[in-house]
């Protein structure tokens, strides 16, 4: 549709689309949040939360609904960054950074490599057409139940506070020594498994 508009070359399609999206969706949202904040209804933290939530949901939607695997993977990065922000809001500095490091640097790269390797840049066609609506329904129901359950229950909320980093280490290594070693075992199993799987191809022929 946009391609047929007589645009000067400066404003090509993608840019226009981006601008339309920004103006049409993001701006009102941000506007509402900011107005609410200005009215004193929302605190700074709440504003940040809503922004991050919007980013996360947008990223997640992109990851889930995009038909292009690379787009999906990149949306995942955006969502992961947002989630890191949420972790920060939840006073978990270390975890936020871990999230950035592992998702931003590791998982995404791995995903991108994987899909470059498999050349599967597009979602294969859904085999039976009923699956998507069905999945949609189930997903929706599931989401509703979870959200209802979580929001509906009453928690005896304690006093939130920053997790001191050094203490985190102390606790991790004093009380969780065994899980920690098990984690290393899990990692090495993953490593060995992945290498074993990947290795077999190197012999060249289809086994």
């Amino acid at each position, binding site marked *: 549709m946009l391609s047929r508009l007589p645009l000067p070359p400066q404003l090509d399609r993608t840019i226009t689309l981006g601008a339309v999206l920004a103006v049409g969706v993001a701006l009102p949202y941000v506007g509402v949040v900011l107005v609410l904040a200005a009215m004193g209804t929302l605190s700074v933290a709440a504003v940040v939360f809503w922004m991050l939530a919007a980013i996360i949901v947008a990223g997640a939607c992109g990851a889930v609904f995009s038909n292009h695997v690379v787009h999906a993977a990149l949306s995942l990065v955006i969502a992961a960054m947002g989630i890191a922000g949420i972790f920060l809001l939840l006073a978990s500095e270390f975890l936020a950074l871990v999230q950035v490091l592992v998702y931003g640097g590791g998982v995404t790269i791995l995903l991108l490599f994987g899909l470059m390797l498999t*050349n*599967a*840049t*597009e979602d294969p066609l859904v085999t039976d057409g009923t699956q998507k609506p069905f999945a949609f329904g189930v997903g929706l129901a599931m989401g509703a139940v979870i959200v209802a359950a979580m929001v509906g229950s009453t928690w005896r909320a304690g006093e939130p506070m920053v997790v001191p980093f050094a203490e985190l280490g102390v606790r991790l290594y004093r009380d969780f020594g065994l899980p920690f070693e098990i984690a290393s075992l899990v990692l090495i199993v993953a490593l060995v498994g992945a290498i074993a799987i990947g290795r077999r191809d190197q012999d*060249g*022929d*289809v086994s």
Partner: protein
Amino acid sequence: MTTTTPGQEFETQDLMINMGPQHPATHGVFRMVLQVDGEIVRDLIPHIGYMHRGAEKLAETMDFRQGIGYMDRTEYLAQFNAELSYVMAVEKLAGLEVPERAQWIRMILCELNRLSSHFMFTGAFGTDIGVFGTAFVYSFRERETILDLFEEITGDRLMYAYFRPGGLAWEVTDNFERRVGEVLKSARQGIKDMDGLLTENEIFRARTQNIGIISAADAIDWGCTGPVLRASGVPLDLRKTEPYLRYAEVDFDVPVGQVGDTYDRWLVRIEEMRQSVRIIEQCMAKLQPGPIMPERMPRMLRTPPGEVYLRTEAPRGEFGVYMVSKGGNRPHRLKVRSSCFANLQALKDMAIGSYVADAVAILGSLDIVLCEVDR
């Protein structure tokens, strides 16, 4: 990209990389298509001919004096050597005798040209290996001093047109000996610099050792010449095996490699530069005043019918001129046997199985001049 067919097809679906004709690594307009699996070259398809501009054909329409210019432009890094083959072919056909002084001067200039050409090689090869311009700049610094000397003698920086059938176009300058001494001094420093910059360097060695090995038998079968052949251990140097000019009267060594890899080609060239310096020093000692042209030279040179295949040892190997004359003042057929042409043929054999970066290094180690390949 919609469907990916399963099975064998997938395995053969390697990445095709096209390098050239405009590519920083291809020394001009060479083009190669690499079939790459991961980073490993599985196949290499060379494409040449982007610089095919008919020097042979044009030289067939020119008289012998005019043809010299085309030889310069064909082998534009070793112009004197190219001119030498051409004028010696004419001399051989016409039965001209070249005065001794002219021969010594020719030798000096040819060896200086070999120096400048090898300097070009060291620089370009350094860049192929990935030195950010520095090797190139150092080698051009030395090259520039040599070119300055050439310019003083012949009047042009690149296209000298100085050798003529029978001798030389004109006398060298008065301060020739002093200038050659200066140039040699700076060249020695340059060789030392290049040697110090790269030869011992661990990264350089890791990049070049055992890369692009070609065995002596293969090299001969492919018709490789020059340093490429000698690096494989074949002591074939026309200056020794079929001495021309006065090469039989000077003392020099022919460096020969042992493994035939890229590093050997580098070492051989570095050593050849040292030997060239040695040769020039001896020539300077033997240079006597005298005529530079035969006494009787016809104004317009004509040759009797006949044919000759005259080859000399240019920096890149055997530079041959096959000249068929049917009488008259121009060749009937002129074929330039290019050294790089043959070396380039062997590239495919050398590069398959190596890394992409190695393919570039191997190409660099062949030291091709595209105008000579395509002519």
